[in-house]
């Protein structure tokens, strides 16, 4: 895969966007590679997905040179329907924890990509740019939903209208970024986090993710029902049994992800 590097080792799937010459912006080939990579990850023994970018940027969103804007027939709705929306759906329903290590600027759909992560780690120099309104477009690829849920209606709306930039410090302050690091700590801490997640009870985490996917929009009564259902399922996992027996044996649990 030219536009992406995928390595899977020690149950960590590392997906690195690899079009550094254009700040890892999306083109058709990268979408195709992304789809393939997710299929490969699902078939692998990976228990955590790490997404990061090669070079200075994380992801600059859509590569505008890949869209022939002069053609009046270009339909941006089709582009979302065929490429971005399936990607966002696939990522947000992936049954693995996702960590995004935002190494540099994320703009447009690149922000959406970062927001799909369960945990966002940002490099100190990184920033998130709501670039859509600068060229007359609307936030897409789930951005309007994900951002609203992440930072609230007011901030999300103002940022989207102004095409604002969120610095790493601001992102941390608003709770978007779980942590900010610089220099070698950025990679080191990200790696450690992934190693921890790769040893976690993956099935239970997958149920947790499903539970949280609607936590902010469902009614409490619905959520109580969902908690009952997922707890019922989690209680049947091998990892739950291991977790409880490790607790009584006073030893570290060895989770197998099942």
């Amino acid at each position: 895969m030219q536009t992406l590097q995928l390595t899977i080792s020690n149950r960590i799937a590392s997906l690195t966007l690899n079009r550094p010459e254009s700040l890892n912006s999306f083109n058709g080939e990268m979408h195709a590679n992304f789809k393939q990579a997710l299929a490969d990850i699902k078939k692998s023994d990976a228990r955590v997905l790490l997404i990061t970018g090669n070079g200075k940027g994380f992801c600059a969103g859509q590569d505008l040179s890949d869209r022939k804007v002069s053609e009046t027939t270009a339909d941006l709705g089709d582009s979302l329907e065929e490429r971005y929306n399936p990607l966002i759906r696939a990522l947000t329903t992936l049954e693995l924890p996702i960590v995004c290590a935002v190494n540099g600027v994320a703009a447009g759909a690149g922000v959406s990509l970062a927001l799909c992560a369960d945990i966002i780690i940002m490099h100190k120099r990184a920033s998130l740019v709501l670039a859509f309104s600068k060229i007359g477009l609307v936030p897409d690829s789930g951005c309007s939903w994900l951002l609203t849920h992440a930072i609230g209606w007011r901030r999300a709306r103002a940022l989207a209208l102004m095409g604002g930039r969120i610095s790493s410090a601001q992102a941390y302050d608003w709770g978007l970024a779980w942590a900010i690091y610089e220099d070698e700590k950025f990679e080191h801490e990200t790696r450690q986090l992934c190693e921890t997640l790769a040893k976690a009870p993956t099935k239970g985490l997958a149920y947790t993710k499903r539970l949280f996917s609607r936590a902010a929009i469902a009614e409490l009564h619905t959520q109580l029902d969902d908690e009952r259902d997922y707890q019922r399922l989690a209680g049947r996992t091998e990892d739950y049994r291991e977790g409880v027996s490790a607790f009584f044996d006073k030893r570290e649990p060895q989770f197998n992800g099942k």
Partner: protein
Amino acid sequence: MTVRTYSEDNDTVRVIELAPATAGGLNVINDATLTAISQHCRKADADSAVRVIVLCAQGKHFAVGADVRELSAKNKQQLQNDKRRDNWQAIAAISKPIIAAVQGSALGAGNELVMLCDLVFCDEQAQFGQPEIKLGLIPGAGGTQRLPRIAGKARAMQMALTGKALSATDAKQCGMVCAVCKTELLLETAVAEAKKIAALSPLAVRAAKQCILATQNTSLADGLALEYQHFSDLAESKDRAEGIRAFLEKRAPRFTGK
């Protein structure tokens, strides 16, 4: 596709399970399968131990339709004398409750089969559709008749004229399904519901099913007359006396079916 049956709850619940012929395959309701389903239903209906039938399927999808090749080999005259009609009719005439557990797609004959069931549970990925129109034909086993009675005229028109499938949420909203369950809990939810019904008076259950199904064929006046007939007939049953006595004595009733 294969059809097998097994019993739950001391034989009071008979589970009829469709399964793809090969792992990863699809459930297709060909002539042999439909015959097997209807035979199993009739056998369960005739078995005095069985109180409720659960219809479920293995695989990603419940059933994706009839066998198109088999269908294409039949001319007009053959279709007019098709044994499939007798099998559909036999399923429609089952007097015991049938509960469907639908995961993934129920399309064409698959959806027509679901509509012959009395209670329907589905998973979050479920969809219900009549895509026949895309092949230049129309549903032949109730897809144009039962669908508008369940889903309403406009929605039935859209489904039958465009082939658009109904999502689990939409199906729940229009009353086509009782509840949307987690995939992993779907079958046990259906079986649990079956056990609840199996514990009730089979005479009253049968009468209630018959009266509700009669609404599809009768005027309100005739339906009310039928209802009252059953209502008063049940006054001679031991189960009714036991049910009322148990209620007044604040204990669980013991129904015998007499």
